């Protein structure tokens, strides 16, 4: 059974339909990417799945109807979003940001400490800067902090919104490296990206979203070789 399944999801801003009948499913541990141009509705799709925006259609997570869960209850079940805007706590230290990432598991102090050690090990740069306010980090470090903070909740599904946005190419490669390495933890990932090539290289399955509708779907490798997708999104190879 799929970990997350969206069926015929519609999201509107007033009269404008930003997401039009999207259906997709993610198996446990799978990396699925949704690529597409600016304004295709990618961020809207993630926000609706997280419960930040109202939507129509069926959504289930691990067999539970998501409409019965508010945002916080989703997080407690291991359903976490790393938004495009990162939403870090800028005035608080790196360590405090990470601790708050484990808030959903606040009754498990030992587990939180273990998760903190693991995150620090995975991101040595964060360990170096643990007492520094999050607002003073560089763009790449902020993205790592956002990822690390989400990992503190022991997610089963991570929604990543444009993790490469605004980062230097070298850092982008590092971030995708990290995303691929999360695969080993058994975390399922729904990755939304404009950097289509990097996203498809990392993902198992891909969907192309255009004007709120899925226009191509398939194994990521197949999409990479699809001439139509390549022409539009991979720099016309």
């Amino acid at each position, binding site marked *: 059974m799929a970990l997350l399944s969206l069926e015929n999801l519609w999201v509107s801003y007033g009269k404008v339909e930003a997401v039009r009948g999207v259906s997709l499913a993610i198996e446990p541990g799978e990396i699925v990417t949704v690529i597409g141009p600016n304004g295709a509705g990618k961020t809207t799709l993630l926000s609706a799945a997280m419960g930040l925006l109202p939507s129509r259609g069926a959504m289930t997570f691990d067999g539970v109807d998501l409409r019965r869960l508010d*945002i*916080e209850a989703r*997080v407690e079940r291991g359903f976490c979003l790393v938004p495009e805007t990162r*939403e870090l*706590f800028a005035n608080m230290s790196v360590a*405090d940001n990470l601790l708050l990432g484990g*808030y959903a598991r606040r009754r498990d102090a030992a587990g939180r400490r273990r998760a903190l050690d693991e995150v620090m090990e995975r991101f040595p740069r964060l360990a170096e800067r643990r007492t520094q306010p999050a607002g003073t980090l560089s763009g790449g470090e902020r993205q790592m902090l956002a990822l690390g903070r989400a990992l503190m909740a022991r997610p089963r599904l991570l929604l990543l919104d444009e993790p490469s946005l605004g980062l230097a190419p070298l850092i982008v490669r590092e971030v995708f490296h990290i995303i691929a390495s999360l695969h080993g933890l058994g975390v399922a990932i729904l990755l939304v990206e404009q950097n289509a090539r990097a996203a498809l290289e990392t993902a198992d399955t891909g969907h192309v979203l255009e004007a709120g509708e899925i226009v191509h779907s398939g194994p990521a490798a197949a999409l990479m070789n699809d001439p139509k997708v390549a022409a539009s999104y991979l720099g016309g190879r």
Partner: protein
Amino acid sequence: MNAQIAAILAMDGIATGAIYVLIGIGFVLIFAVTRVIYVPFGDIAAFTALTLAALETGHVPGTVGLVIGLAVLATLLEVAARLRARRLGGLPRAMLLTLVLPLVPVLAAWLAAGRDLGMAGRVALSLALIMPVAPLLDRIVFRPVADASVLLLLTVAVVLHFGLVGLGLLFFGPEGVRTQPLTDAMFTVGGMNFSVQTLLIVAASIVFSGLLFLFFEFTLAGKALRATAANPTGARLMGIRPATTSTIAYVLASLLAGISGILIAPVTTIFYDSGFLIGLKAFVGAIIGAMASYPLTAAGAIFVGLLESFASFWSSDFKDAIVFGVLIPVLLWRSLGFRESEEETEE
């Protein structure tokens, strides 16, 4: 005015200011977490004083009726909201929080009626009785409009203040009260007499501000409160419920207001409607702290206390006019400061 009078006025001003510090910090705390400028905050302090006075005379305090009424109303709202959203799973826990917990001190007050609890017992019971009031009001009044603008929340808070004053008259009656001094002891420094009561007020203010600081710095719940204040969306994505943080903020702030009510009760006669003026003066302190900085708020509150003390020496009739008159230049100065800091962030 000679040095001795100045010293007495200063001591008096610091003691009054210390009371305003607790309320001012409460203002900042509630505003940071919920964006509500909690106008009825002074009423919470006044109600605590009235509760303590009733316990001293062996009566069941009016707070009992107030808390029962609010707890029942809040519980009904909670049940209705959960029925509508079909999320009944958390109902027992919600009932525990909105009905059972608030009624524990009520029960204690009933059992204690007519018995001598001693000073410490009465103070503890008064605080326990007042603590559920603001969180329950939050559940009833503010939660349904939690996402509204600051202006709308402020308007609701003003209305709530008038409602509470009416309820205060209903539950506590029109008589003014003054409680027994916490202590009569005096001590002498440099040929001048000071009451231990004054010292106690200042000490309580320092201790409880300090405890709040430790809570914010060293506990996960305290950090969750700071996170909600700094970035509500980010906090929700961590699984931090705004309803939970606002309840914690109201409980803590009520504790601060309650303590200030208990400290002020022996030195001033308190009526059911005395809270507004106390709250307003503490609010001036919070404005000096820009509703954001706890240390500046504390300094501002002490400043207001000193100003009030010296103003009442020069002209007792105009002391409130002088205190609030100072607010105008302060607001001007702070609004200039705001503009500068906004420009800085734009850069």
